C-alpha cells in the first residue's frame, strides 16, 4: 500500500481544540481537491469523534487526543485516538439516539453522523485504555 501523504496531530482534550482539530484535518484533506460538501462531511465527522474523545473518553479529566491522517490515492484515512475510559458496549454506543450522558442534552447521533458522512467507520476500544476511531472516505472528484 502506497501512502502518498501522512500527518500527526496531538492536543489536550480541551473543547476549544475541537475547531482547531477539524480545521487541521480539513486543510490536510484539501489537497485531494474535495467538493465543499465532501470537506464539510469530513470536518463534521472529525468534530464528532474528537467531541466523543473529550466528553466520553476523558469526562471531567484531561488527557491527549491524537489524530493520524493518511492520503492514499483518492482516499483519506483518519484515526482519532484517546487514552481514556474506553467504550464498554460498542454496539450500544453506535445506536442512533443512544447517549450515556442524557443530562448534557447530547443528541446521541455522533456515530450515526460519522457513519453517514464517511465511507467506513471502525471502532476499537479497550475499557480503561481508550478508543480508536478509524474512518475512511474516498473523494469522488479528486
Amino acid at each position, binding site marked *: 500500500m502506497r501512502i502518498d501523504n501522512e500527518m500527526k496531530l496531538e492536543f489536550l482534550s480541551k473543547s476549544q481544540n475541537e475547531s482547531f482539530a477539524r480545521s487541521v484535518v480539513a486543510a490536510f484533506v484539501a489537497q485531494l481537491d474535495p467538493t465543499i460538501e465532501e470537506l464539510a*462531511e469530513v470536518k*463534521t465527522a472529525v468534530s464528532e469523534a474528537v467531541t466523543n474523545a473529550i466528553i466520553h473518553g476523558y469526562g471531567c479529566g484531561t488527557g491527549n487526543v491524537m489524530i493520524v491522517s493518511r492520503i492514499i490515492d483518492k482516499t483519506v484515512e483518519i484515526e482519532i485516538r484517546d487514552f481514556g475510559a474506553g467504550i464498554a458496549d460498542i454496539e450500544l454506543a453506535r445506536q442512533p439516539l443512544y447517549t450515556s450522558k442524557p443530562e448534557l*442534552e447530547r443528541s446521541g*447521533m455522533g456515530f*450515526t453522523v460519522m457513519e453517514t458522512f464517511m465511507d467506513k467507520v471502525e471502532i476499537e476500544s479497550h475499557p480503561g485504555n481508550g478508543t480508536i476511531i478509524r474512518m475512511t472516505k474516498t473523494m469522488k472528484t479528486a
Partner: protein
Amino acid sequence: MNIGFEYVDRLLIVRIDGDIDHHSCEEIRSKIDKEITLKNPKSILFDMEQVGFMDSSGIGVLIGRYKLISNNGGKAGMTNVKPQIMRLCEICGLQKIIQIYPNKKKAIASIKEC
C-alpha cells in the same frame, strides 16, 4: 460567540454568529435560556445565516430549546440554513420537530399565524 436577539411581537429571533459545536454550545444554551427566562417569548426562530459549521452537539442544543418553548405551547423554527447543515438536520430528523423555512419573512409569517 456573538448571539443577537430581536423580537416580532412575542416571537424571539435568535441570530447565532459562529460555529456550533460542543465547545460553543454551553454558551449558546445559557445565553438563550437567560433570554427566555427574562422575556418569556411564545415562540423561537433560529436565524442560521452566520453559522458555517454545526455538528450533532448543535442538534442537542436546538432540541433542548425547542422543548422549553413547546412546553409552553410555542413553536420553534429555523431559517437561512446552509446546505451542509441542512444535511445534518435531515440525518438527525430535526426538521420533523423544528420547521425549516427558506427565509426569515416566511418563517415569521408562518410561526406568528399559530
